[in-house]
């Protein structure tokens, strides 16, 4: 492949490597009882609080957050200037039909049901999930969990219900792992949050099947601000999965979530995300977990969609022998910037963390890895391993890596490695010689690159991921 004569091949390979984004590209007419209108002000916050009948402390929390949001500058001193294109006055901050989440799919309004049916959610629930929450714009339309889990004391509700009905469980941790002022977007979320999951797993309860949340944007210019808090009590185990899609509207939309995880002594939380927003969604998410003694938090993250994703899942290892892990796959196509990474804050002895990140840049896509590893003084036996690999498919593809590693004291070990490469001509030639066409060959090479990470996803997801890539390689999906 020479560089100048390869435009057609580039187009082909670009098409070939692209995955099925069309699955989520449909929408139904809007039918909202509550609409906070466009723009953000004290009145917007009050409107949301009124509709949700927030307790006073939540209302106060929102107002304080709004002030923080307004006072904080955009982080463009280190982040992309594309953030300046977000028009906060054009965004709609709250839309809902005023209905409570349904416990049965039969009660869910027809269009909403059709939406989730097309996305395969009820089917997956029957097949392998312990519980599902399906959020449609601002609020959950459906929320259900296997009965036996309720008996065991597992709580799986949306944020409004969580703060109202189970205040004594959730309030002590709410906004503690990620304080309002952590960054501009966590402040925004704290001001207007709605939906998301609040989960409590009691002591020693180990969920065999995952819980799932599905986030769907159906309305134009709508901003989704879900808020999730998962608390795994001592020795508990849970896997939580989230998926997200939106149709491609004319104007950009915004998803700005805050996800807090708390793993108490010996608990284990796995948080799996497959993000497939349409390519005009700004996905600016703050995710962080707190791991106590012997606890483990794993973020398994796949970013395929969105216009700009900025997401750096973190783990604060607060108790001895706590473990943090981030496994991340990013696919950036033309017009997309996947700015992802990880934060590992070691705050106790013998804590270990692992970051493995793989990104693929196609066409003019840009992928970025930003990492932070912090090991302070007076700790001992902390270990970090970071690997980030990037694959560039086309001549105009772009990739950046900006890790920051601070180690104090000599009783620790860290290692960081990154590589950038592309699918070599030899590799493609080798496969073509054996009768595999170029698209297929490229697909095989890309799948090979991410294969070891795909296996980290739950089986149903990993099959799906592979299938999505394979499908596109055949050029059968437009």
């Amino acid at each position, binding site marked *: 492949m020479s560089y100048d004569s390869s435009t057609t091949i580039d187009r082909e390979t670009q098409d070939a490597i692209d995955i099925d984004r069309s699955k989520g590209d449909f929408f139904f007419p809007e039918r909202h009882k509550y609409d906070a209108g466009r723009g953000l002000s004290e009145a917007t916050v009050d409107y949301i609080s009124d509709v949700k009948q927030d307790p006073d402390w939540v209302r106060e929390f929102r107002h304080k957050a709004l002030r923080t949001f307004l006072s904080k500058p955009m982080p463009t001193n280190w982040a992309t200037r594309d953030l300046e294109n977000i028009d906060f006055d054009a965004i709609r901050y709250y839309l809902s039909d005023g209905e409570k989440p349904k416990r049965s799919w039969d009660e869910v309004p027809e269009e909403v049901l059709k939406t989730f049916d097309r996305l395969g959610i009820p089917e997956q629930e029957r097949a392998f999930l312990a519980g599902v929450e399906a959020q449609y714009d601002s609020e959950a339309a459906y929320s259900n969990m296997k009965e036996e889990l309720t008996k065991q004391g597992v709580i799986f509700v949306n944020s409004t219900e969580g703060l109202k009905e189970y205040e004594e469980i959730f309030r002590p941790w709410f906004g503690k792992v990620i304080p309002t002022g952590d960054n501009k977007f966590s402040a925004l979320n704290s001001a207007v949050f709605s939906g998301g999951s609040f989960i409590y797993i009691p002591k020693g309860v180990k969920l065999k099947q995952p819980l799932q949340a599905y986030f769907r944007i159906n309305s134009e210019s709508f901003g989704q601000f879900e808020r999730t808090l998962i608390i795994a009590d001592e020795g508990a185990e849970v896997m939580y999965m989230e998926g997200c899609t939106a149709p491609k509207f004319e104007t950009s939309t915004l998803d700005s979530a805050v996800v807090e995880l708390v793993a108490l002594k010996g608990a284990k939380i796995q948080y799996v995300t497959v993000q497939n927003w349409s390519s005009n969604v700004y996905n600016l998410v703050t995710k962080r977990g707190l791991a106590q003694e012997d606890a483990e938090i794993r973020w398994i993250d796949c970013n395929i969609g969105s216009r700009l994703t900025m997401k750096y899942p973190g783990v604060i290892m607060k108790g001895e022998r706590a473990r943090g892990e981030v496994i991340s796959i990013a696919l950036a196509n033309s017009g997309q910037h996947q700015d992802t990474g990880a934060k590992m804050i070691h705050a106790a002895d013998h804590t270990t963390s692992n970051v493995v990140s793989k990104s693929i840049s196609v066409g003019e896509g840009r992928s970025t890895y930003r990492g932070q590893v912090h090991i302070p003084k007076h700790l001992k036996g902390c270990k970090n391993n970071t690997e980030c690999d990037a694959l560039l498919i086309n001549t105009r593809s772009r990739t950046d*890596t900006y890790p920051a590693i601070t180690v104090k*004291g000599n009783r620790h070990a860290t290692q960081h490695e990154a590589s950038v490469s592309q699918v070599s001509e030899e590799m493609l030639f080798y496969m073509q010689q054996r009768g595999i066409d170029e698209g297929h060959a490229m697909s095989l090479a890309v799948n090979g690159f991410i294969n070891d990470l795909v296996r980290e996803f739950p089986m149903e997801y990993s099959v799906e991921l592979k299938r999505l890539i394979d499908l596109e390689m055949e050029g059968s999906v437009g």
Partner: protein
Amino acid sequence: MSTTLESTASILESAPGTAPDLPAWFAERQRAAWQRFLETPAPTRKDETWRFSNLKQLDFSSCRAEVPVPEDTGRFIERSKGVGKPAAKFIFVNENLIEIESSLPENVICLPLAEALLLHGGLVEQYFMKQDTRLGSAKWTALHEARVSNGLFVHVPDNVEVEGTIEVFHWLAGRHASIFPHTLIVSGANARVRVVDYFGSANASDYGLCVAVNDLNAGEGSKLDYLAIQAFNEHTRVISVNETGVAKDASTTGFVLNTGASWARNESLCRLEGEGSRSDMLSVSVPARNQEYDQRTFQHHVSPGAFSDLLYKNSLYDDSKTIFSGLIFVDEGAHHTDAYQTCRNLLMSDTCEANSMPGLEINADQVKCSHGSTSSAIHDDEIFYLRARGIDPVRARQLIARGFSVEVVERLENDAVEELVLKFIDDKFAHIAGGGA
């Protein structure tokens, strides 16, 4: 140069005066640079190029300009010991030339900068500080440009290979003295040259400041080696900014050794401007006690088909701190780039701090890039192995730390120079073993 006047003026207060005999363009550049220095804001916490840095170190108000040269210059000549037989040797005290030796071929221009400005003004102008400072110290390079009065200018014509090493000693003398040494090296097509800058203090107790700039221009097919050995006393602060341009098929090696200074900031930027160009960026730092080294690097692949390899190693003792921030930047169209970057920290105490920010920005295709960064202590098994052979643990740790640094030094590929660098490293280890200060 008003060297006979006792000056107590802070370097930040009054505009410096350019010596009247220097060319008008130079006086104008110095005047403009002073203006730029005044107008450029000082770095803040928010600047990515100063992340993790100790900004308190940037208060230079106590530093004095043009501190006179002590009368007894003989001791500086005595202490200026480099490789056995240098091709040329220059000794400066507070930017004043006190000794010169040269056995260079006649067509090689190798002069103190002040003299080069008089004799080869046009040539100096062509190369003098042509690039913007990109790694954070724009304000301080403006101060350097405004205040520089001397340094070294080397111009090696096409096809001339300089045998041996050109040595330059920069001594800093007097309380709160400051120097602004400048090194400008130009190698013509297929030329070859090696320059070593040494930086040292008159005594162990005087506070001082050095803001050095070195500009390296490697012409087509040439080989240019530059070494900076920084061994100031532990009350001196240092900013050194390197700019390297590498033309087609040329090759440069830039090496920095840090053993001295209380705080040193090194910025090294290498532009690979032609196909087949190669750059090796190397550094060894051995900080102890409260020493802080802050190193920022930039490997800029402008042209396709170039190679760059960076290896920085730090051995950290006591409460010392290092920052390494490196970026490999591959321009759009700079295909077939090979770029590597490695920073390794050997943690020798439980209170030292190593920060690493190895970065990549790739905008091209068919690129092979990697970076790696490790921080770790010596493993107990290694110490055990050496103890089993009758080597006491203190010595064993020193041996391993030395071996760790030697890997970089060997890349200099010149026995005399390697020996010299190792002598400075061994001095530092002896200093650490002896309790220091």
